[in-house]
């Protein structure tokens, strides 16, 4: 049952994206009517649809891109697409937001990310990894640099043959975490991942998926 809801939702998401350049009220009207039609066709079966029946219903409804073509009739060019300000702010907060306003900035970024209509759920999950990687990197570096154990540094009194000498043992401090070279690789990797994901999401804003 849940996979059917998934199929319908995926179809409707495709439709929404294909209609992205149409006026918003027209988008909503068409999407709402198509969703109502699909659900009514399903309920006419009188029981839960089998996978192939659901696929057939969606097939008969047609490729969202084809349907959307008709929605643009009467417009020589697509109407100006919706403002992407939300997405721009989301990406800003997800990256530098956490440094301007520690933690809180990232939380704001995550909220904006998830309420956006532009990104798919999969893309939102990837986006959630951005502040996680950045947080892991910078708090990780901080942690590793203070996690040290030091031995020595004490003063020892030695009496070789009667004479008293005070020797100070050298202080040896070691990082008790990973080898420095390994942690550097990990941190660099996390930062690269965060930057790549940011660019990927930005690219998706400019090129809405039509498949």
């Amino acid at each position: 049952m849940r996979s059917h809801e998934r199929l319908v939702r995926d179809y409707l998401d495709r439709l929404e994206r294909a209609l992205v350049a149409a006026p918003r009220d027209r988008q909503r009207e068409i999407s709402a009517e198509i969703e109502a039609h699909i659900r009514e066709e399903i309920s006419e079966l009188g029981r839960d649809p089998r996978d192939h029946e659901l696929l057939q219903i969606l097939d008969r409804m047609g490729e969202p891109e084809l349907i959307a073509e008709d929605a643009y009739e009467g417009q020589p060019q697509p109407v100006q697409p919706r403002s992407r300000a939300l997405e721009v702010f989301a990406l800003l907060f997800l990256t530098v937001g956490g440094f301007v306003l520690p933690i809180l900035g990232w939380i704001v970024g995550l909220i904006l990310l998830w309420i956006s209509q532009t990104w798919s759920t999969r893309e939102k999950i990837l986006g959630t990894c951005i502040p996680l990687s950045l947080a892991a990197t910078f708090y990780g570096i901080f942690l590793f640099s203070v996690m040290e154990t030091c031995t020595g540094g004490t003063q020892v009194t030695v009496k070789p043959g009667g004479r008293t000498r005070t020797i100070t043992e050298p202080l040896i401090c070691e990082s008790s975490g990973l080898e420095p070279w390994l942690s550097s690789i990990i941190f660099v990797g996390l930062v690269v991942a965060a930057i790549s994901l940011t660019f990927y999401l930005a690219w998706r804003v400019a090129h809405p998926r039509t498949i």
Partner: protein
Amino acid sequence: MRGMVASGSPSLVQLRKGTLEYCVLALLAEEERYGFDLVKALSDVDGMLTPQGTIYPLLARLRRENLVSTDWKESPSGPPRRYYRLTAKGRRALRTFSEEWRRFSNAVDRFLERAEK
């Protein structure tokens, strides 16, 4: 590839496209209907409405051009349905098309009959 492509010669495809809206108006002249209902009626004719979903942009356009108006009504099977009905302007457009179509299809018929002889 999913989805159906309208079958028939290119001119037949064009013809269907051009007359579809008047077929919708004609169906609404009988009684007001909701989307799914219109789709079922049109699907009786092979290839008239492919793919089915394209009726919804059409209905949105007819509403925009004030040829149809809509109304929400209770439905026995769940959420309210949007019902479509003809406006006065829609009726006039249908009448005009009806006359033009009759003249045109008669003329085409005559040419075709001559070729069959």
